[in-house]
């Protein structure tokens, strides 16, 4: 997962993106499908994949849910990218931020940046946590106490130092620029994917079986905290901010045609299917052979080091680093957008500091299954407003891009339509323990409907055409 829409700050598409922040991408800047296949494959094979697979095991997911549920959920994610995000991106050819500004006004984009920036920081913090687990095996056993799935607080001074050193290195690189790291991520992608597969092969060898279905079947009596539907929704919406939430408009606006949306399949089926199942097998080995309690788990660094040695540790560090670094950079940009008075460097340092603080506390990484659902719940509804504006506004008689049409700095209709369903969703999660991945879709639909109602009231009797 984990992955973050690097959009206009990471890859080459991104560098070009900064040239067309407030205008349509010209035909001369459009890219063929190969650029997108590689990008999606790289972005979605991240350090956090080492956490998600084992967390499924800890939550008692069964074989059918993992093998069939993940397949279905990832397919739905690809279809969302292809038929919603890519369709709108190739029609509008502008960034999410500019589209939002035209609908919601500049003031509301600032609020979105705050939410986005903070969520980016917590996500990057999880990646720092995962990378820091690769430091432990480099020292004698017991030097650094590794966190478990039950850890919420730092496990000791040595752990804090590991996170601070790794997080500071990531922040310093983000400060200098992300170009080199983006390139390393691009180079690392095929190798990292093979390391995931290698971990699974070694695990199967050590367990003396190739019956993956049987291995993924939890022992009788295991409490199942995540159902088939839960797995489907998790894999569908773990990147909800990018597809349903339209963050990937910034990337896909460079596509020659919407079929580039199929490129997301590379990320989903390699990173979010094969890699998750491979990572899950690592914990299953430790449960069966070393008697580890699946609810307590084992840190990724130790498991990967045991399976494939130093190459695995390198993979854990690189997978975390190459995705956390641009995330810190983007969080810095979001904060800078919010606080225009501060420099890019100061904003990046602020973001890096928050990321390191979040990384020190394993609670974020260990609750990744819930966190990414909440991430989608907060950001995906904005996409529903864009869907209404793009597909429905003219048909139902509401003004398209109302902030641009009326010169609004802050569109209250959008704010209410966004915050009311999100507030209810977060309350349901907190008060009733509703699984966070169930919330992005209903929140997005409710947000779209509420926006239609509110915009209808604000629209003149006869809506003007496209602004």
């Amino acid at each position, binding site marked *: 997962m984990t992955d973050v829409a690097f959009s206009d700050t990471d890859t080459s*598409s991104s560098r070009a993106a900064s040239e067309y922040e407030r205008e349509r991408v010209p035909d001369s800047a459009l890219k063929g499908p190969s650029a997108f296949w590689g990008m999606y494959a790289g972005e979605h094979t991240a350090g956090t994949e080492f956490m998600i697979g084992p967390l499924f095991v800890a939550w008692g997911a069964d074989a059918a849910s993992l093998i069939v549920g993940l397949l279905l959920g990832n397919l739905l994610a690809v279809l969302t990218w292809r038929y919603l995000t890519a369709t709108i991106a190739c029609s509008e050819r502008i960034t999410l931020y500019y589209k939002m500004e035209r609908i919601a006004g500049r003031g509301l984009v600032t609020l979105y940046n705050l939410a986005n920036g903070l969520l980016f920081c917590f996500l990057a913090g999880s990646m720092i946590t995962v990378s820091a687990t690769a430091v432990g095996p480099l020292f004698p056993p017991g030097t650094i106490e590794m966190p478990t799935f039950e850890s919420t607080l730092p496990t000791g001074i040595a752990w804090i130092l590991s996170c601070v050193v790794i997080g500071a290195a990531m922040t310093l690189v983000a400060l200098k620029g992300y170009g080199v790291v*983006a*390139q*390393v991520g691009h180079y690392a992608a095929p*190798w990292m994917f093979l390391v995931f597969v290698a971990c699974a*092969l*070694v695990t199967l060898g050590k367990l003396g079986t*190739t019956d993956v279905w049987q291995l993924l079947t939890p022992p009788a009596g295991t409490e199942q905290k995540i159902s088939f539907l839960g797995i489907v929704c998790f894999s569908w919406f773990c990147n909800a901010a990018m597809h349903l939430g339209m963050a990937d408009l910034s990337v896909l606006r460079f596509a020659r045609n919407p079929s580039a949306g199929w490129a997301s399949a590379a990320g989903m089926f390699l990173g979010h299917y094969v890699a998750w199942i491979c990572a899950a097998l690592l914990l299953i080995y430790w449960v069966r052979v070393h008697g580890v309690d699946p609810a307590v788990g084992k840190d990724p660094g130790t498991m990967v080091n045991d399976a*494939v040695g130093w*190459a695995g540790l390198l993979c854990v560090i690189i997978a975390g680093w190459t995705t956390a670094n641009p995330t810190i950079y983007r969080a810095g940009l979001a904060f800078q957008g919010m606080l225009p008075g501060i420099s890019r460097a100061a904003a990046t340092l602020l973001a890096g500091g928050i990321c390191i603080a979040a990384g020190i506390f394993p609670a974020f990484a260990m609750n990744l299954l819930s966190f990414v659902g909440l991430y989608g719940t907060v950001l995906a509804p904005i996409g529903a407003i864009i869907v209404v504006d793009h597909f429905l506004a003219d048909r139902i008689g509401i003004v398209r891009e109302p902030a641009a049409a009326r010169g609004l700095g802050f569109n209250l209709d959008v704010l209410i339509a966004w915050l009311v369903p999100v507030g209810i969703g977060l309350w349901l999660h907190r008060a009733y323990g509703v699984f966070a991945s169930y919330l992005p879709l209903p929140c997005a639909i409710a947000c779209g409907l509420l926006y239609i109602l509110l915009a209808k009231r604000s629209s003149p009797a006869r809506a003007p055409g496209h602004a």
Partner: protein
Amino acid sequence: MRAVARFVGLAALAATIVPPALFMTGRMPEASMKAMMLVAAVAWFAAAPFWMKVE
């Protein structure tokens, strides 16, 4: 140069996945498998920049 890098890169990718497969089938000891994977990792990162073009 690019052809050499491409050959080294492909060999490195093969050396990343073949040793674990051989270990799984009991044809390679664990220590050799881990050593080969590390060498393959170094070779991959040495070759990839000369081979893989970032658009």
